[in-house]
């Protein structure tokens, strides 16, 4: 079992922040800068989980989640939306598209990794507050 995580994020600073945090905690991180590349990489690299921004070039987060969920091989793979969209319905919309969980930006560096681990362990419950 690898501990590879795929981050699809177009903002380099945000990508760097998450990659830094996760790698510090022992994860192997691969990343894609747009939706299409993200889907392609997910298909090639079999990540344990996918962290997905919503606003992405070429193919947005909803489309990526939907595209991945069509493939049975991703059935057990958590897709965690990490987004700064905090308006009403954003959360429901991305979950409906196929995401397993939702983490609002800005992330809390104190709890972020623990949250990712929880998704990986199969505890899909999202956490409030």
């Amino acid at each position, binding site marked *: 079992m690898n501990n590879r995580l795929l981050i699809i994020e177009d903002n380099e600073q945000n990508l760097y922040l998450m990659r830094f945090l996760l790698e510090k905690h022992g994860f192997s991180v691969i990343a894609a800068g747009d939706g299409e590349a993200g889907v392609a990489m997910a298909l090639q690299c079999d990540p344990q989980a996918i962290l997905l921004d919503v606003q992405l070039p070429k193919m947005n987060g909803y489309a990526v989640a939907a595209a991945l969920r069509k493939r049975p091989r991703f059935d057990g793979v958590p897709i965690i939306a990490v987004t*700064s969209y905090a308006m009403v*319905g954003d959360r429901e919309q991305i979950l409906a598209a196929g995401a397993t969980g939702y983490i609002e930006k800005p992330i809390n*560096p104190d709890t972020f990794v623990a949250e990712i681990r929880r998704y990986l362990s199969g505890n899909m419950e999202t956490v409030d507050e």
Partner: protein
Amino acid sequence: MARSTCPAPLFYRVVPIVCALAFLLVSQPLQADSRTVRVGLHEVPPKITIDSSGKPAGIYVELIEDIARKEGWHVQYVVGKWADNLDRLERGEIDLVADIARTEERARRYAFPDVSVLSSWFQLYTPQWQRIHSVVELNGKRILVLAQSAQEQSFIRLSQGFELNVTLIAVPDYPTMFAMIADGKADALITSRYHGKWSAGKYHLKETDVLFDPIPLFYAATKGDPKQLLAAIDRHLAELKKDQRSLYYDALHRLANGPTTFSLPIWVQIVGAGMLGFLLVSIAVSMILKCQVNVRTQELKRENTERRALQQRFMDIIDFLPDPTFVIDEHKRVIVWNQACEAMTGVRKDQIIGQGDYAYGEAFFGKRRPVLIDLLDQPDAAIEATYTRLYRTKNRTCAGTTYSKPSASQGSYLWGVASPLYEQDGRRSGAIETLRDISEQKKTEEALRASEREYRELVMLANSIILRWLPNGRITFLNEFGLRFFGYTATELIGRHVVGTLVPECGADGRDLRTLMDEITDNPQRFARSSNENMRRDGERVWIDWTNKMVTDAGGKVKEILSIGSDITERRQAEEQIRLLNEHLRRQAETLEQRVAERTAELAAVNDEQRAIFESASAGIVLLKERIIHHCNRKFEEMTGYPSGELIGKPISMLYTDEQEYIRFGQQAYTHVVSEKACYKEEMQIVRQDGSPFWARLNLCAYDSNEPFKGMVGIIEDITDEHEVMEKLRQALEAAQEADRGKSTFLATMSHELRTPLNSIIGFTGIMLQELAGPLNPEQHKQMGMVQKSARHLLALINDVLDISKISAGQLELAITSFALSASIEKAVKLIAPLAEQKAIELRMEIEDSAGEIVADQRRLEQVLLNLLNNAVKFTEQGWVSIACREENGDYLLSVTDTGIGIQPEKIEHLFRPFYQIESGVARKHEGTGLGLPICQKMVELMGGSIAATSQWGRGSTFTIRLPHRYQEVRNEQPLADHRG
């Protein structure tokens, strides 16, 4: 007369026997030639008998031998069966047949003389055990009859006439017939009377009363009579019949009185020899007596002359009798025929006097035989077979019957009285019969009888009371129905006075009915019809409708009163009831009419009022039936621009902008009216006559919401102006919403854009403070902490601003669920507990049992509670913070109370204004966005509740939320679907 006639029979009896014997002795050897007459005989005792030696005897034999002797014929007998002899005669093998009746058919085959030998009736004989008394009893019987005989045909006619169903068995001769009846192969047989009488005793038969068709019997000759025998036979028979003392009458007498002994030839010969001697003595004696006789003859001549004169006088008397009367002598020859006979029969006296052979019968009755005068010696039964009515007095026989006059089409009823006539010495000398045509009398009698019968039946059976009473009031008759009706028996009632029995003394109304009865008898005309009260035996009063008929005597005086009555008690009661009902109805009708008139007036008034309202209404009013305008007011015509009255009867489809709209409106409005049972309201465009549309507010109500098509009333207001204002407002609102949407989109975008850099700031600050990137010295740690704090504050500000703007833009959507209120409270307390603990502030919870389920947005409510608790803890330095929940007026009251600094009263009203922060010395210590309370207020209001604050400066504050148990949609405006743009 007696003296001269006395010896004659003996003489006449003896002479022919002697002659016959002499003839018989010499006739045997003769051969048949032209003078030989072959006579066919058959055994018909006593008319023709054949003894054991085959020798025939009887009247036919005696007569033919007498004639043969006179004519010089040689007689040969051919004895055989009757039918065989007929065949022989037809073939010419014999010349004569004896004892044959004449029929039409036979008259064609054989030749008949004019003069008959015998007249015989046919009679029916039965075995002793059979009980046949009349013709009708023959139905279903087997009857024997001689084949090819006259009686066969006669009986067939008779049985057809009576519509009898009999089995006729034709047999060739009488011996066969008697043998068959003895064997029980038949019930009855028919023979001629003479033969039957002779045979009855021998065969133990009984004669019946069935007698029919007297017929003459003849000798018959071969067709054409080649030997010309018949003329001689006629001549001799006529001669013989004329003379009462002839051989003929002698033979006839023997025939009627049974067989004599002369059929024994040896005995006869001996006696004959004796007789011969006696004859010689007699001649001698007669010679001696002759002179005495001559003297006596003179005397007799004188007596005869006297007698004739007397007879002539009687005849004259008879001649003038008004009824047809005739007299016959002992030879049945007519000797008197009076004028009345001539008048009735049309047969003149000179035509009939001296005629025998039923000439008198023929004149009156045609072919009918026998007539009364012929039957005088017969038993009553024989007469009754011919006559319908019969009685005898002494020696007179009276009988009557109907018969058909040959000339008349209908039957006449002739009443005859006949009597035998006797000589002084008692000898029968003839008979007299008087006839009377009583057809008219009979008819009248019959009519009277019928009428009497009808009347009797009517009276007895009528369902009416028939009463007869005398002018003195006594009852003489009351019919069966009447007796039953009144309850009396005839013996109880007859002879009593009507008053006190059938008529009460006074009526129920007090009227004296005794005088009424007097009035009736006094003035019968007036009371031809009267209804009055009567009384039954048990006292029950009844009403009877009487028809009174006065029976007057020749003098015109009332003899009797005939009253016919019918019970009208029920009818009277019914009439009374009808009268009462009619009266009641009439009164009701009057009341009703009055009420109708009043109501009509009222309605007219109301109608006028309504018309005034209808016409002067400022709104258009349309009455619809089946979506057709039934009526509309002037205002509606003005609105739509149609001339007065032109809309009536028009379909409302012409008022819609197009057909689809017409259909849509119809479906919507009628469905609404039926399902909601309420009026339908809509604002819609109506097209004027000139085609221009205008906005109208329509209120459509059905008279009967179950059947809206039956009738609806529509109130139409022209809201063109209103609609224009509304349209402007709507546009303004739309512009505002558009602007708002732009603002929201801006805010959303800004929130997103601000979060991205904040993510880096907060993220990396956190990493550094965690010293994941390397260790920090204390100063660095402190400064990084400040960065983190500012970044978080900035994020809180962004979040609150976003919330406020979302709420303002109506974008905040509530997630309404049902949840336990106490659980949410506990959750909020649990979250604030660390902070309170940090500040050593006591947290109190006071949740009443009534705090159960609430229907609201759980997350938002918890957010509000947390915010309030957070504020309370933040502004409290010591003491406690409590959260309480109770119920009031169906709402939950949630209050957060603290013992903090409190709020100055003049500041309280500004508490919920955005970015309003109370400036105070300690304010700095309590950083906040200044948006918390406004957000709380907005959210609570969104959930249908309210929030209020009370405070005492320096003592503490209480924030109270009032929330309904169940959230109910209150927002009018739909949130915009796309909020991101």
